[in-house]
């Protein structure tokens, strides 16, 4: 049985909103911007087995922007790593689903994150280890554009290039916003005074300049994401890969989109209902489109 990635991603978004609403804590903006990337990775790209999470040959995944952990948890639950009911323990004392991913509590996580800028370096270590041990797995690392302000990212970039890590695939979730960020100039100021920006500019040139092979995609377009991931995996040219994915913070819920305040804010009853209505209508409209044309095939999970 095959499922449509858009359906899965929308279900994951519903799970994210539902969990944060029910627990009245957690992040929303970043998790919603990274959802399609996680869906593409876990439901199409990566060689993983939910029944055998410790499988040595599995592809490795690091969510370096660890504050989007809830998006990874919902994705893992949908993939079958643990029952979806466990999502309701998110952020509770004693939970395996810590606010930021903790590999010592949840064994299906390949690395712990939460302090920004460290995950790409760990990915470099995994990729070097794979080469040393003659293993064919790939290491995927998702970083944020705000996170890229950390200098350590650029330390890792140099070493990945030095050691020809073409088995390391980074994805930049470039949503243009961060927790607080900077005010924008008068000329840039939109009608909405709440807009603030992350300063990431010319990401493509930066990554190219450091000797990485780059791809630039719409991070909410599965055709583009899958095509870039496939090229990144198959180009064995000695270059580490970075997929610059342009995304929208809060994607899928109109009043959260591009609003920095929704970085970490819990919805009210009314906001929750509206968000779920919007996500349900995406599901409905997609189902009607699906009747007309089915183009994206997904590997059986």
């Amino acid at each position: 049985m095959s499922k449509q990635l858009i359906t899965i991603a929308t279900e994951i978004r519903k799970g994210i909103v539902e969990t944060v609403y029910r627990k009245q804590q957690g992040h929303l903006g970043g998790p919603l911007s990274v959802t399609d990337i996680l869906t593409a990775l876990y439901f199409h790209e990566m060689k993983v087995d939910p029944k055998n999470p410790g499988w040595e040959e599995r592809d490795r995944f690091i969510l370096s922007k660890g504050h989007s952990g809830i998006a990874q948890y919902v994705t893992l639950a949908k993939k079958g790593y643990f029952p979806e009911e466990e999502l309701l323990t998110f952020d509770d004392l004693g939970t395996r689903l810590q606010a930021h991913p903790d590999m010592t509590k949840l064994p299906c996580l390949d690395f712990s994150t939460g302090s920004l800028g460290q995950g790409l370096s760990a990915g470099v270590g995994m990729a070097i280890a794979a080469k040393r041990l003659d293993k064919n797995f790939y290491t995927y690392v998702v970083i944020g554009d705000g996170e890229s302000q950390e200098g350590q990212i650029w330390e890792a970039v140099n070493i990945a290039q030095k050691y020809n890590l073409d088995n390391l695939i980074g994805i930049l979730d470039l949503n243009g916003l961060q927790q607080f960020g900077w005010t924008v100039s008068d000329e840039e100021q939109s009608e909405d005074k709440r807009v603030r920006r992350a300063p990431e500019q010319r990401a493509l040139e930066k990554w190219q300049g450091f000797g990485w092979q780059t791809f630039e995609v719409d991070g909410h377009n599965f055709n583009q994401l899958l095509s870039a991931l496939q090229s990144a995996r198959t180009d064995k040219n000695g270059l580490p890969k970075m997929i610059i994915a342009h995304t929208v913070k809060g994607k899928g819920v109109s009043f959260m989109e591009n609003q920095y305040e929704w970085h970490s804010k819990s919805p009210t009853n009314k906001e929750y209902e509206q968000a779920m209505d919007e996500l349900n209508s995406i599901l409905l409209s997609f189902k009607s489109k699906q009747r007309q044309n089915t183009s994206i095939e997904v590997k059986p999970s």
Partner: protein
Amino acid sequence: MTTTIGKVESMRSVFGKKLAEITQSDSMVVTLDGDLGNSTRLATIEKEVPEAFYQMGIAEQNMICVAAGMASVGLQPWVCSFATFLTKRTYDQLVVSIDQTMANVKLCGAYSGLLTSNTGKTHHSLDDIGLMTMLPNMTVIAPGDANETRAAMEAMYNYNGPVYIRLTRAEDIPNFTTDQSFTIGQGKVLEEGTDVAIITTGSMTYQVIKAVKILKNKGLSLYVLHLPTLKPIDSEAIIKAAKQTNYVFTVEEHYIRGGLGSIVAELLSEEYPTTVIRIGVQNEYSECGKNESLLDKHGLTPEKISGRIISKVYN
């Protein structure tokens, strides 16, 4: 037990040789350098086992997390840099990527303390015992001589979890330990006496052995406890030393705050309340100078150590 003094072996040279042996015998062991291998002697591995040597450049934060990533796939990385950069410059990385994940990474802090080849306060590491013993999952070792370094490294290799080893660059310490094996967490009683207990660690134990000769001539009966492991600490040995004597002194090439002196004072205040006199670097920054001058300035020569003890006991 009377301490016998053997031949002088450089701690860093033994470090390089022993690590080369380990990497040769086990392909899962790798080494990471922060561009200081020719000083720390990690260069021995580049020369003898080049496939186990990874140059990470002058970028310590990345180096720490690369090691953690390697460990998560089953390798055993040994990371080496100057102690001050390896600990302070990467502290958040040590916490989040190494200690919180309990990564099987061995951290080697070369050039610890004051004796760093006359490079001054930016290169002195006088707070690393405090920083590293603060970490819940970390084991902290400071061997006293080259022989003990060799044995401690074997124990580190066989231990699964993060370990920090604090090494000195001083090259005039003769072997005074003879054990071929090292038990993590176990102290060593070097002298058993009844007047004064001196508790020491790392590079200062040899200075204390020399101070003891001076003190014996003054008619004092000394109890010397060498603690090559600072975490987990040998509480029993410390309490025993305090119970058997009238005074407890600690000596370390480290700030008196946060290091061995603090550990001993904290433990005894709860378990066997005793006045603890901490000998070490006071609340100040160091400067450049020859080894002998630096030790003298900070009260860490055998003469200064014995003088401090005499003035307390006979005052």
